[in-house]
């Protein structure tokens, strides 16, 4: 029971810190806008091509924006060794992981909403028809990405080159998410029958479950000295 409180406490703390300074979210949203602008402007996409490029643009943007968030998430913890401060309390390291992970998920999701709205305007593309499927795909794609990003963020925070180290660790492992999410998003936006991209969605769900559980179990080792 106590561990559920810990998850919530850590999550609420991250949200409160973010609410105070609003730095991370602002950074993530601005960076996301810049990327979508660059893609949209330089590719000069027609409406037909938008169906092909939009999923790629969205997920590449989400990926980079996420990296920013994960790095910031652990920079705040490092400042006064706050992660160690948490470890002084009788808490399950996995609960700390889940709290941090949920906060990262929330921040990335908010940034994604902003990115999608802007992309919808610039690409002159309506997400309304496929909204349900798109939200479902984005949910699990983001969950899997954040699951890995949170544990790797904590690992990278220990290294000398933390900001650079994180994408090097994260991107190779996130390849199945990129492939799965881009394929599924493409299918959903084209209005394919759900059966045609259901496998990709299943892949995302399986990836999310496996890596949330695995990271939950391994986080203990990341925190010890």
């Amino acid at each position, binding site marked *: 029971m106590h561990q559920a409180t810990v998850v919530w406490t850590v999550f609420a703390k991250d949200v409160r810190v973010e609410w105070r300074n609003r730095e991370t979210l602002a950074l993530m949203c601005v960076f996301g806008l810049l990327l979508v602008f660059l893609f949209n402007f330089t590719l000069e996409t027609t409406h037909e091509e938008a169906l092909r490029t939009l999923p790629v643009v969205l997920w590449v943007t989400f990926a980079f924006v996420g990296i920013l968030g994960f790095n910031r998430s652990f920079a705040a913890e490092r400042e006064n060794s706050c992660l160690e401060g948490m470890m002084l309390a009788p808490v399950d390291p996995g609960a700390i992981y889940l709290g941090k992970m949920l906060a990262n998920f929330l921040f990335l999701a908010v940034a994604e909403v902003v990115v999608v709205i802007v992309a919808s305007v610039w690409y002159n593309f309506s997400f309304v028809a496929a909204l349900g499927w798109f939200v479902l795909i984005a949910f699990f794609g983001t969950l899997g990405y954040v699951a*890995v990003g949170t*544990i790797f963020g904590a690992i990278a925070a220990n*290294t000398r080159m933390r900001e650079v*180290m994180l994408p*090097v660790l994260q991107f190779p492992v996130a390849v*199945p998410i990129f492939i799965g999410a881009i394929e599924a998003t493409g299918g959903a936006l084209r209005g394919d029958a759900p059966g045609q991209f259901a496998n990709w969605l299943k892949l995302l769900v399986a*990836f999310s479950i*496996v890596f949330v559980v*695995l990271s939950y179990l391994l986080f203990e080792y990341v925190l010890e000295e």
Partner: protein
Amino acid sequence: MKKALSLNTHALVTLGWLFVALYMIFLYAPREETMGEVQRIFYIHVPSAITAFVAYFIVALGSVMYLAKRSPAWDEVAHSAAEVGFVFCSCVLVTGPLWAKPVWGIWWTWDMRLTSTFILWLLFVSYLMLRSYLVNPSRAATLSAVVGVVGAADVIFDYMSIRWFRTQHPQPVILGGPGSGLDPRMLATLLVSWGAFLCLFAFLLRLRVGLARAQRELGEIRRTFDMDLPEVQRGQ
């Protein structure tokens, strides 16, 4: 400790086996009809790839065992396998284009095997980079073991997603896979070469593990150098 095979014998066996493999690759195996001489790189390319995957399996095994037992020896196995595996994996990525260009007319294609090998290579790189940025050895061992385990779980997903992706996006029609209708002499050459590569891998791994162990023992000796401070007095 009794060794099944001394390092020197192992070196000689490896060398001999490699010569046999070379003989078979260039003189024994028949010339492939459509691809010509260049096809012989196949006997280096494929064994390297298999060896690289074996190496990553050992990285994963060493990582899991290190987290379970906390014995530095397992970490040394994982770290060494990553370094040696990285070399074999690089070999796959170099021989692949060398083979592809004359045969397919392109240096690179994102076919299933090349793609998954490339991701494996990235996993080796990120594992080794992480290690080089960590200072404290026991911390490096633990953190890289976590990365090794996560990476191993990821390889399965990589494989699945790439396979599905390729089946949805048909490749430009290229020659039938090298596995189809293999001449028995070709098969024999492949197997001998594969054995030689695994033998070489095991030899390099042993060398590297020995080096890591020597480094650790040297550190232990250095630690004991300034151990000459006597306890003055211990109260109750």
